[in-house]
């Protein structure tokens, strides 16, 4: 079964590599949204500095929705999903592998890019570490939640409209703890509390969401 998992990971990475153009879109979206705020507001450094944690986190949250509906779509349409359900590897693991490769390709570059966007928003470098750790813990949760929504709506022709409605309310705690921890770091407060909570939420999401993802895929296939 380990061999099967490795094969799955390799295939997902292979596929992502063949379509690397699409993978850049969420990243571009993230940069654009962050850059729009100084234009829409006032480029006053003190104001930007106050808003930066919220802006970066909201932009990351929205960037996670870009292209989310295609997470399982092609597998659903070309019949690969049926084969994945019928293979001896548990569907929960198959889903988890897909989410992790998706995060490696779209989430991780976003985290790496975040300090740069922070600098554009006058985010102090002393708090950059907290922002990075927060995003490292938080964006996988967003990917897992997003995958639940993508799995539930993969059978729908127009899932793009429905997905944000399903996902965003569930993502509120991640946004709150993530953005707050960064803001607290700017103010020089102790940030261990919200970061631990983000870590706990990541553990919870890693253990529970694969079941919801697999359940969603099975339900979608029944249609």
């Amino acid at each position, binding site marked *: 079964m380990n061999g099967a998992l490795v*094969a*799955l990971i390799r295939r997902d990475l292979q596929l992502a590599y063949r379509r690397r153009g699409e993978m850049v879109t969420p990243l571009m979206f993230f940069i654009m949204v962050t850059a729009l705020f100084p234009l829409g507001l006032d480029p006053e450094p003190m104001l930007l500095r106050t808003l930066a944690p919220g802006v970066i986190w909201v932009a990351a949250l929205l960037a996670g929705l870009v292209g989310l509906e295609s997470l399982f779509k092609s597998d659903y349409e*070309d*019949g690969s999903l049926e084969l994945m359900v*019928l*293979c*001896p*590897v548990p569907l929960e693991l198959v889903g988890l592998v897909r989410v992790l490769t998706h995060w490696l390709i779209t989430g991780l570059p976003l985290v790496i890019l975040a300090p740069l966007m922070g600098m554009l928003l006058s985010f102090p470098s002393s708090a950059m570490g907290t922002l990075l750790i927060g995003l490292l813990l938080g964006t996988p949760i967003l990917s897992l939640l997003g995958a639940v929504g993508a799995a539930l709506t993969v059978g729908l022709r127009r899932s793009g409209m429905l997905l944000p409605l399903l996902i965003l309310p569930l993502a509120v705690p991640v946004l709150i703890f993530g953005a707050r921890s960064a803001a607290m770091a700017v103010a020089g407060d102790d940030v261990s509390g919200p970061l631990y909570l983000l870590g706990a939420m990541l553990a919870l999401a890693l253990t529970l969401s694969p079941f919801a993802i697999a359940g969603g895929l099975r339900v979608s296939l*029944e249609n």
Partner: protein
Amino acid sequence: MTTTDALSCEALEIWRGERRLCHGLSFRTEAGRALRLHGANGAGKTTLIRVLAGLSEPESGAVRWNDQILVEAGDGYRQSLAYLGHANGLKSNLTPVENLSAYVAMTGRPPAMSIADALARLGVGGVAERPCGSLSMGQQRRVALARLLLSRATLWLLDEPLTSLDAAGNELLVELIQAHVERRGIAIFATHQPLELANGVLHTITLGGAA
């Protein structure tokens, strides 16, 4: 392959939306037999194949593999099953070789023959290194059928396997099914086209008298 494998259905009742596709459907297919599901478009062939594969659930009744209901048979059933759906299950960005090697790895068992041999047997050896998206529909169907040769499954569940195949492809598929059944395998396929096997191994069920 053991000689006792059997797939049976008891009093299946299947609905799709507000239409009842079948009720009280019972049959049993044993090793060394083939079953053809016949019926007009919309009669429920695809849905029945999916129920047999365990992808959908019947409204009532049960499907049993070796007298175990599918949910309990679980992994054992999935290992004995090779399924070919409406769609080919091929990634258009990957080549036939890449697609099939991912499939082999996912089944977790050594293939029954090499991928190159399987592709050659189905007459698509020449396009093994081209992305599947650039192949014709018939070639893609042949690549998908190559999975049957690679898997060691006893039970083949095929949904409209003749789709997009030319005359030579039809004959080839008939040969493959005949050979599989003679090795004590089971083949169940849905098709509205005529497909005959030798030695009286083929049974037919007609679905949806009043669709």
